[in-house]
């Protein structure tokens, strides 16, 4: 270990400079040059090899020269003020150092001297030392060039008195700047005050007057002054109420028990009352076996037109029947199919049954087989079932164009030989599809039985008498009942008309009662 002669810090062996103060380390062998690693005697101030300065320029030379050749590692000498000071190589003074530097330089060959050293060599060392000594100032003394000339001293003193007499106010410091002023706390040393013991460790070792870290942390931060705030009186009242509510402990909510009036009871159970009314309207006529509608069922003009179109068919004519519905509307479409197919078979026409829906093919097969059996129809001779036709528009067009061709039926040779197209449509698009692909291109007469939901969109084609698109139209279960009534063969549709009539009456009454309750509530609300 090598102890620094300046600060006493310990450095590892082989170090050239002190790790704490940066001064060159002096070993027993001398001072190592930081530039060329040449080992110089301890007494020299410049490297004997390259001429580099071995002592920092800022080091104040001491008055007394030290015998450093005898100093060992860690050795200390007695200082001037009785304190332990470390021997420094530059304590011999600047003038002596220059002389020795000059001597060392003379020992060097002329070729090794750099130009700037040549200039130093020409400078007389004694004159330079005396000149520097003469310009050295005492503490607190100003140099000549900073002294106020005598002719200006009087002017400046008069100007200062004038300012004091006129009472010029001091510059006002804004509040935000005052807020930034550090708080003055006791125990905190002023910045310029060099008091207290020197630092013993760390980078500030040996320095006096350093600020301790603990007092700074103990200074409470000064909050910036906030602008004055004024609130209206009611705001303070609201704040008090809010504070009172917030501070109140939560109380268990008392269960509100309201008297259950008859109106509330009816409102809560109205759904089940409505269901009960509808169920009663459906069940009671069935249980009673009522057949009031068979004698009083009116037949509308559209259903009558459909009946007439079928009634006018000649015997042995071919009728194309399409069953385009699914189980969702089978409740109203199957009674229609049964009534119309039965009428067709009574007219002894041959039937070709198709379906544009896969469910319709299955449902229609059961209906047609049941009615055919009742009327003595034979499959293949009197009626056919082509099943489900895929491809929507293209499939339908290919079917009607394939009549009479290979794989076709021998009932007709071409679509124009079909006497009538009967369409049972659960959705209005099937009616439009048959009209577009068959009725309009080939001029085949057409009637349709549709579900109640498809009626509004199918009715314009029936009312278009100029084009004769639909010769007749039958709607829903009511249309099936009308057809049965007109044909004189009561069936399932006509038997259910009593229940349907009761349900319709019940709905009308519910609408009226609901509006009376609504208007009564509005009147009570006023």
């Amino acid at each position: 270990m090598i102890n620094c002669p300046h600060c006493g810090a310990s450095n590892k062996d082989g170090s050239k400079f002190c790790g704490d103060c940066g001064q060159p380390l002096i070993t027993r062998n001398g001072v190592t040059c930081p530039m060329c690693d040449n080992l110089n005697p301890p007494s020299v101030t410049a490297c004997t090899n390259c001429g580099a300065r071995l002592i920092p320029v800022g080091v104040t030379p001491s008055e007394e020269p030290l015998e450093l050749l005898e100093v060992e590692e860690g050795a200390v000498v007695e200082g001037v003020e009785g304190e332990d000071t470390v021997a420094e190589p530059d304590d011999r003074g600047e003038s002596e150092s220059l002389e020795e530097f000059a001597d060392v330089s003379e020992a060097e060959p002329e070729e090794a001297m750099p130009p700037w050293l040549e200039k130093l060599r020409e400078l007389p060392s004694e004159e330079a030392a005396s000149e520097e000594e003469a310009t050295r100032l005492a503490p607190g003394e100003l140099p000549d060039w900073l002294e106020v000339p005598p002719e200006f001293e009087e002017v400046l003193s008069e100007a200062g008195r004038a300012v004091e007499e006129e009472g010029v106010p001091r510059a006002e410091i804004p509040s935000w700047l005052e807020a930034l002023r550090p708080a003055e706390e006791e125990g905190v040393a002023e910045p310029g005050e060099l008091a207290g013991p020197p630092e013993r460790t760390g980078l500030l070792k040996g320095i006096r007057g350093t600020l301790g870290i603990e007092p700074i942390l103990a200074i409470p931060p000064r909050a910036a002054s906030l602008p004055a705030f004024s609130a209206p009186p009611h705001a303070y009242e609201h704040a008090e109420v809010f504070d009172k509510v917030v501070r109140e402990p939560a109380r268990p909510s008392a269960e509100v028990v309201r008297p259950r009036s008859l109106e509330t009871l009816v409102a809560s159970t109205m759904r089940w009352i409505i269901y009960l009314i509808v169920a009663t309207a459906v069940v009671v006529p069935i249980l009673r076996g009522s057949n009031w509608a068979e004698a009083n069922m009116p037949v509308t003009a559209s259903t009558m037109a459909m009946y007439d179109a079928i009634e006018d068919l000649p015997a042995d004519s071919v009728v194309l029947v399409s069953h385009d519905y699914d189980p969702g509307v089978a409740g109203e479409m199957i009674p229609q199919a049964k009534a119309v197919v039965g009428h067709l078979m009574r007219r002894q026409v041959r039937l070709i049954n198709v379906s544009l829906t896969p469910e319709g093919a299955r449902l229609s097969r059961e209906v047609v087989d049941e009615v055919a059996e009742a009327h003595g129809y034979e499959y293949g001779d009197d009626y056919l079932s082509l099943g489900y036709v895929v491809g929507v528009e293209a499939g339908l067009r290919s079917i009607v164009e394939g009549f009479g061709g290979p794989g076709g039926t021998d009932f007709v040779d071409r679509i124009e030989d079909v006497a009538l197209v009967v369409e049972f449509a659960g959705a209005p698009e099937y009616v439009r599809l048959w009209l577009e692909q068959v009725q309009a291109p080939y001029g085949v007469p057409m009637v349709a039985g549709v579900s109640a939901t498809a009626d509004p969109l199918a009715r314009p084609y029936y009312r278009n008498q100029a084009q004769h698109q639909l010769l007749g139209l039958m709607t829903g279960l009511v249309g099936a009942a009308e057809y049965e009534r007109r044909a004189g063969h009561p069936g399932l549709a006509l038997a259910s008309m009593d229940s349907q009539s009761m349900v319709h009456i019940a709905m009308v009454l519910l609408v009226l009662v609901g509006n009376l309750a609504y208007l009564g509530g509005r009147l009570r609300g006023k």
Partner: protein
Amino acid sequence: MLAFYVARAAYRGFRLRSLESLAFIAAVIVVLLGQVPVGSYLSEFVPAAKEWILDVPSTAGVRGIIIGVALGTIATGVRVLMGIDRPYGGEGGSSQ
């Protein structure tokens, strides 16, 4: 099942709030009664009124919808043919 839900909706929905709702409720009552034999039993006017509602106002509205759809289809076809619009399918789709 449909009758149950329709009956409940009729009770809750058909409320007399304005003149338009009055006309709507009147049409509903006439069609409900005219569709079944009890309508003709009540009055000969009821089935006739039902037929008029279905044939004139309802059909007129549906014809307006059909004509609108037809005109829209024609306009869209013309736009595609003139290159103003592009049918669905994106870059390299059916428009190529």
